[in-house]
């Protein structure tokens, strides 16, 4: 099996991982940066430097380009091996990657909630539809309904509209009262006011409803229409795509597999972004959903602290504190309403990998029982979609994560056993 060794290994090349890698790469320190996508940037800067539009994205890509980084794209971490090593599946096969310091920046995914019709082709995540359009999905002239919660809905709406989509409706589940309170607090963050103003301007004329949420998607072979509810008003809107965004869920599978301390589904870190494991750091959404600014601050602190640049890391603390306050404001303003727990009907599929329906899942007392008896969460996504859904629906928590932490090729796993067999033979020979 191919082997690579780095002083610092960063997993995840979104803003947090990029900032960490760039901050760590100095004075001859070797830094590796692993990501499963074809290009760095994570979800927010998807597509890498060629597609960067914001000054901030360009700045970080330029710094990454000028740094002596080894970028491993299209590569997924499959499992922790012995201490200080990870099994990584690259596009050219399995690879053992050793490190002195490890910085985890695995990011977040969208939370999906089951409702009747949500498995129809055309029903997507809000960030998911945006990602596909960035990847070339034709959207011009398509009718799109955007439903869920939070500023991401507006950002996605503005992006899709700029690409020629007809935005038929934005259904925001939070109330006007909460939106008003959010706007009042926003006054303390001039940066965000400018962004909000730009979004509002680009979305002039787009129908927006608050206290409004999706209840059903209609169609036979693919999505044809959606029904939304606002108080006692029921509206059905024809559309080609519905983009749902019910907030984000931290990707904690790799930190969990490494046995980092996790509380309330987020990775616990100290002031230096170090987990309870010596030499293992975590930055970005996995330490708590906080957005771009917080990810950049945490990534820099992790990269600097992991390489002993403590004064420079300390200088970033105020920026991190400010970003954390904004994250708390967002979490308060866009908390999910309890009515969203009642959308699924008896025959609504909850686990899409194994087609396990709501009435079957809800007979169980906890996640483990549902897994063992119904195969809920046992398919290729390994519960990444239905686990977050059942956490919201039933308050279930997921237990241990076992390797391989993502669907892997058999060849990659065989390589590990061949390798350890080979090593033990070598050791015998030496002794």
């Amino acid at each position, binding site marked *: 099996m191919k082997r690579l060794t780095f002083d610092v290994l960063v997993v995840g090349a979104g803003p947090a991982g990029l900032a960490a890698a760039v901050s760590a790469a100095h004075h001859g320190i070797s830094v590796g940066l692993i990501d499963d996508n074809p290009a760095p940037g994570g979800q927010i800067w998807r597509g890498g430097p060629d597609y960067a539009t914001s000054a901030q994205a360009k700045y970080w890509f330029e710094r990454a380009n000028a740094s002596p980084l080894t970028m491993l794209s299209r590569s997924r971490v499959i499992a922790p091996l012995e201490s200080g090593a990870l099994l990584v599946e690259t596009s050219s096969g399995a690879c053992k990657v050793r490190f002195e310091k490890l910085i985890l920046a695995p990011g977040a995914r969208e939370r999906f909630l089951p409702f009747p019709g949500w498995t129809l*082709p055309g029903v*997507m995540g809000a960030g998911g539809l945006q990602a596909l359009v960035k990847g070339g999905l034709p959207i011009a002239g398509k009718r799109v309904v955007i439903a869920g919660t939070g500023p991401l809905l507006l950002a996605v709406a503005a992006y899709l509209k700029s690409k020629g989509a007809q935005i038929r409706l934005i259904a925001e589940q939070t109330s006007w009262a909460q939106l008003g309170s959010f706007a009042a607090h926003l006054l303390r963050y001039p940066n965000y006011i400018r962004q909000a103003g730009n979004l509002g301007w680009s979305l002039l004329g787009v129908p927006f409803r608050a206290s409004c949420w999706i209840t059903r998607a209609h169609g036979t072979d*693919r999505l044809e229409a959606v029904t939304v509810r606002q108080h006692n008003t029921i509206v059905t809107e024809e559309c080609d795509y519905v983009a749902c965004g019910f907030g984000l869920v931290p990707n904690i599978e790799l930190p969990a597999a490494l046995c980092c301390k996790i509380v309330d589904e987020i990775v616990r870190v100290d002031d230096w972004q170090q987990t309870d494991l010596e030499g293992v750091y975590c930055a970005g959404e996995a330490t708590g959903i906080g957005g771009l600014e917080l990810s950049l601050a945490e990534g820099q602190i992790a990269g600097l602290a992991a390489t002993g640049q403590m004064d420079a890391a300390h200088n970033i603390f105020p920026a991190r504190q400010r970003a954390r306050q904004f994250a708390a404001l967002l979490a308060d303003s866009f908390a999910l309403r309890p009515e969203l727990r009642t959308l699924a009907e008896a025959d609504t599929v909850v686990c899409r990998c194994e087609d396990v329906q709501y009435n079957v899942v809800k007979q169980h007392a906890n996640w483990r029982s549902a897994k063992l008896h119904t195969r809920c969460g046992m398919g290729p996504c390994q519960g990444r979609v239905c686990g977050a859904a059942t956490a919201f629906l039933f308050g279930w928590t997921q237990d241990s994560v076992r390797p391989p932490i993502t669907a892997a090729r058999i060849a990659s796993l065989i390589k590990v056993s061949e390798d350890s067999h080979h090593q033990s033979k070598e050791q015998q020979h030496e002794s």
Partner: protein
Amino acid sequence: MPERLYEIQLTVNGQAVRVPKGSIVAAAIAVAGVDTYRHSVSGEGRAPLCGMGICFECRVTINDQAYCLSCQTLCEDGMRVVTT
């Protein structure tokens, strides 16, 4: 980004499709007019949900290799994509 103007030709279920360079396979499948990327264990048609390599709903067979995520794979000339 002039190189985005270059087109790539591939096939989706045997049908020739042209897409701009930099496109992902999930986009090429939509360009081919195909709605169903895979069939679920109970036979429902499915298509991409997460768009970022998490949900596995967009998995297809690419150049005879099964279980490829069409949302994370870039189109290449001569690629053979088959939905399942």
